[in-house]
């Protein structure tokens, strides 16, 4: 099985605080990996180090075996790593369709061909398909800012898939979403995983969501990996029980 992402010895110190202190894990092709852990365990910092938002103190990130440590977020994205943010991040004055075209355009041609080429970079059809897939057809020409929270969350996820990424990192996708919406989101993610073989890493608080969605789970505590394995294995791990239920 090919490893899409591999993180080796990742460390991030803020002054004396060791937010991430030597984390190793990998993600296999077609896998949905969950990363869980209590608040302040360093999982968001880990995410930001992987994605080039922060410069790691030490460690290495490999994408399909090639080192990508320290690349800008935009460069990483063009190599096929996509992400969503914990808080909603859509472009409010662009329409839903324009949001999706934007999400795909930088992967088409070069800057120069984009400047002189078509206004939609030839992505209108792809965007419409994505809109249909996420069931947002009736809102396609609305400004994203006018959508409801749940609709924006769907759009946010749709944008992450627009460029056909090798790997998608989802930062707390379930945050602030109600149950019905959560089910819809989960169903869509599973569908993409099933149909396109997309690979995910999900950071989540919501244990139920992670346990039911992910094929493998990494548990973090105090900047280190506490345990990893299938949801069932992890759930049975005494260290995890201690960390989660001990206090």
């Amino acid at each position, binding site marked *: 099985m090919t490893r899409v992402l591999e993180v080796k010895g990742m460390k991030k110190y803020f002054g004396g605080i060791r937010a991430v202190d030597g984390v190793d894990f990998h993600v296999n092709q077609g896998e949905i990996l969950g990363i869980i852990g209590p608040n302040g365990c360093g999982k968001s910092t880990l995410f930001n180090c992987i994605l080039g938002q922060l410069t790691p103190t030490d460690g290495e990130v490999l994408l399909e075996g090639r080192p990508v440590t320290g690349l800008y977020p935009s460069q990483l*994205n063009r190599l096929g790593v996509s992400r969503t943010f914990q808080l909603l*991040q859509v472009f409010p*004055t*662009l329409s839903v369709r324009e949001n999706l075209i*934007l999400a795909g355009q930088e*992967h088409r041609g070069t800057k120069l061909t984009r400047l002189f080429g078509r206004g939609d970079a030839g992505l209108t059809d792809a965007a419409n398909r994505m809109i249909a897939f996420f069931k947002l057809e009736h809102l396609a020409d609305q400004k994203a800012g006018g959508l*409801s929270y749940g*609709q924006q969350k769907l759009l946010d996820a749709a*944008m992450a898939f627009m460029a056909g990424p090798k790997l998608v990192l989802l930062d707390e996708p379930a945050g602030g979403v109600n*149950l019905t919406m959560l089910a819809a989101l989960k169903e869509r993610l599973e569908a993409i995983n099933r149909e396109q073989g997309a690979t995910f890493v999900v950071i989540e608080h919501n244990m139920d969501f992670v346990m039911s969605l992910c094929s493998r789970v990494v548990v973090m505590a105090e900047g280190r990996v506490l345990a990893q394995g299938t949801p069932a294995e992890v759930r049975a791990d005494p260290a995890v029980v201690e960390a989660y239920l001990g206090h």
Partner: protein
Amino acid sequence: MTTRLDPNLAVILLAAPILWFAPAGFKAYGLYVVSLWLVMSIAAMGLNLTLGYAGLKSLAQAGFIGIGAYTTAILTKTFGVSWPLAFLASGALSFAVGVVLGFPALRVKFHYLAFVTLAFAMFVFLVARNEEWLTGGVYGFSNIPRPVIFGLDLSRALPFYRFVLVVTVVLSLAMWWLLRSPWGRAFLALRENWMRAASLGVDIRTYTLMAFAIGSAWGGFAGALYAPLVEFIDPAPFAISASFVMLLTVVVGGSGFFLGPFVGAFLSFVLPELLRVTGGWYLVVYASVVLVLLVICPTGILGLVERARDRLSQRRAAALRDAARPMLEGSEAR
């Protein structure tokens, strides 16, 4: 995409012939004022790209008009270079300087960026004033020739006005093309949420620098027209207060709206002339009008139009949402 004509393009294509013929009855003064309006609209269009679309607050646009004006004046008068070449050189030089000035924008944002660019504008003014060997210093640069293009003598007011109009239309179309291209979308993404944009592969550095450089180039182009329009330049019109006026022009017209610069430039450069009939207090009247306009429509005059349109489409969207409610039951966050 539908084949419906983009409304902004429609306005340009419609306005061009009207503006070609309408001022034919104007006297030299009227033609001069309308020409000035177009020239300043070009500069404002550039700033609108930098500020309105890409969200980078610049207080340096008058500096770039100055760079363009002096480049054109020096090249055409001192070195006898033809105007089209000088025009391109003015844009190119402003573009290059704009790239350099864009670098601080990678480091600082918001009002801090405005102050860095303000310092730059002051520097341009000081160079224009102090380097007499190059710019004529405080005495200025007089008898700047109006161009002769394809054998057409443009020294009289009406032909020159029409020439300015042609250049304005060409530059407007170029700007329109740029903004409807993926670049335009990337600029907007930069303004609205650069972190998210970066995560979608938008090259923040390049687009930031380009937003500055292209906006500055338009300033340089405007300067290349300003010099032969006035036929005289000195440092005064490029002082920092002029950069403030440019910013005001863009915001009052409607920052981030394609036609905003034309509306804004009308207010900043034509309205004061029209208000001359009110006598000595005309600048007080003008400032009051601008102030009231800003309080009524802080997003600019075209922002007001947009707001009305939004309200209409929201009502339509609400109806659609109601219709779709059964499908999305419960998905609305409270």
